[in-house]
């Protein structure tokens, strides 16, 4: 347990050191790349709450990425650049969409749940494609980044990097508290053995639904961050392959572990980036690599850490 804490602390220190190192070596690209990793880390951490701890295989998590991003984009389109408001709207709108999707899907199990979550996300995707006012298929530019009363300037890549890092750590801490609380124990119990959970007197549905909404809201925040990161918002944020990627980050990193999803986001996006720089046909190598990693690391990357792959 001590060794694990030390390794994770070292990871955080390394992440803190990325901007100064990138500046010293004149490689600003890496600030950008790592910031993307951290944003997807938040998305993966949020999915892990319901997938890794709750056993809800949502195959539509990119929906909230899209809702969060479009919340920022649409408000900016109408001249509202206040970041507090934009991000609050992103979180609340994602929570509401998750409440709607969850209310219908969480009662179902197995393949039905997967298909319903996927279907709703496809609907949102086509909604994004069809609304011409916001760029339709091509998406829309975010001309002005979210403004935070002059407190932080997201236009500064380093500042923005630290904002995202702080939010990722906050989300990980939040999930850590949640999964160890009474609430968290109910959703984990329902994942472990639903019949037993009902037999001792829990109705899992309301707890699972609340977990689903929290995960959606958290991913909506990641969407708001992504919009500011790319300064461009397109329906592709909600593509089903994007949902698959986020899910893969969780599985690769380690389901039901606190640092796992962030490790998964790191591994997936860095390897993708390296391969893409190396050959055009990187996906041919990438696919089998993913399959192998799943077969090889049963508990995910977090399982390689001392202390094993589970937290809580």
């Amino acid at each position, binding site marked *: 347990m001590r060794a694990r804490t030390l390794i994770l602390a070292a990871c955080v220190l390394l992440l803190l050191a990325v901007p100064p190192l990138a500046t010293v070596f004149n490689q600003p690209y890496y600030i950008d790349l790592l910031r993307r990793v951290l944003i997807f880390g938040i998305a993966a951490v949020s999915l892990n709450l319901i997938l890794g701890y709750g056993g809800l295989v949502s195959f539509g998590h990119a929906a909230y990425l899209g809702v969060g991003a479009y919340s920022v984009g649409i408000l900016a389109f109408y001249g509202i650049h206040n970041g507090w408001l934009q991000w609050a709207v992103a979180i609340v709108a994602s929570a509401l969409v998750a409440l709607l999707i969850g209310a219908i899907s969480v009662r179902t199990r197995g393949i039905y749940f997967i298909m319903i979550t996927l279907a709703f996300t496809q609907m949102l995707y086509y909604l994004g494609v069809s609304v011409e006012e916001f760029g339709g298929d091509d998406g829309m530019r975010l001309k002005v980044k979210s403004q935070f009363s002059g407190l932080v300037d997201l236009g500064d890549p380093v500042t923005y990097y630290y904002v995202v890092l702080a939010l990722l750590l906050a989300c990980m801490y939040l999930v850590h508290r949640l999964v160890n609380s*009474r609430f968290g*124990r109910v959703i984990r119990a329902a994942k472990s053995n639903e019949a037993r959970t*009902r037999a*001792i007197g829990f109705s899992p549905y309301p707890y699972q639904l609340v977990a689903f909404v929290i995960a959606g809201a958290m991913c909506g925040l990641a969407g708001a961050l992504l919009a500011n990161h790319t300064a461009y918002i397109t329906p592709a944020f909600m593509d089903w392959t994007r949902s698959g990627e986020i899910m893969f980050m969780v599985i690769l990193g380690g389901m039901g572990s606190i640092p796992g999803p962030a490790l998964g986001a790191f591994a997936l996006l860095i390897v993708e980036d390296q391969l893409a720089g190396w050959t055009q046909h990187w996906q041919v190598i990438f696919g089998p690599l993913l399959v192998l990693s799943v077969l090889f690391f049963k508990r995910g990357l977090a399982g390689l850490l001392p202390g094993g792959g589970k937290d809580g």
Partner: protein
Amino acid sequence: MAESILAVQALRKSFGALAATDGVDLDLREGETHAIIGPNGAGKTTLIGQLAGNLRPDSGSIRFAGEDITHLSAPQRARRGFARSFQITSIYRDFTALDNVALAVQAHAGHSFRFWRAAREERALRDPARVVLEEVGLGARADVLAANLAHGEQRQLEVAMALATRPRLLLLDEPVAGMGLEESERMVQFLSGLKGRQTIILVEHDMDAVFTLADRISVLVYGRIIASGAPEEVRANAEVRRAYLGEEA
């Protein structure tokens, strides 16, 4: 005679053409241990499932403590005082023994929309759980992962979880099945210690256990109760001997 706590009337449940529960009536007095015996496939587990709320009966009614609970779900019944063990052990294999029981305590400690405080540090959950674990003889195994417990210990754990909910009615589906002689004796001894203060429906094939524990016995064959009464009466019943105890009359 004490007032009946559970009253089952004309309960029926079919799977296709098979009448697994075929007009069952059952009355349970507060504090009694009522055994249900019968050959394999007689419908014992199906009956328990309908009592616990996992299976919906096709018709008939179930009253519990004066309330019609026929249409209540399993969790709703659990909150009114039902607790059960399953024929095939049903526990949280990836939780420790103590966490298993603490969850059962938590299920009866108000709502669980509490998001911040670590449940494992709540003495209100841990302490009662530990007491029940001690009672069933698993005190020393509290921190062992349930998956790593021996089969007999897992059965004990399941009973501990049921008891931790402070049930008014305990439904046990073959609690000593698959246990060694010694384990099984310990379980029977433990259950006999509950006698009088705990109302129990006991489904069991082990006749030693049944005749040690039961105040009354009902014999279920092809979904029907063919005999019901005190152990001596049932033992003497010729039809029972033919149908179930496997003797020539």
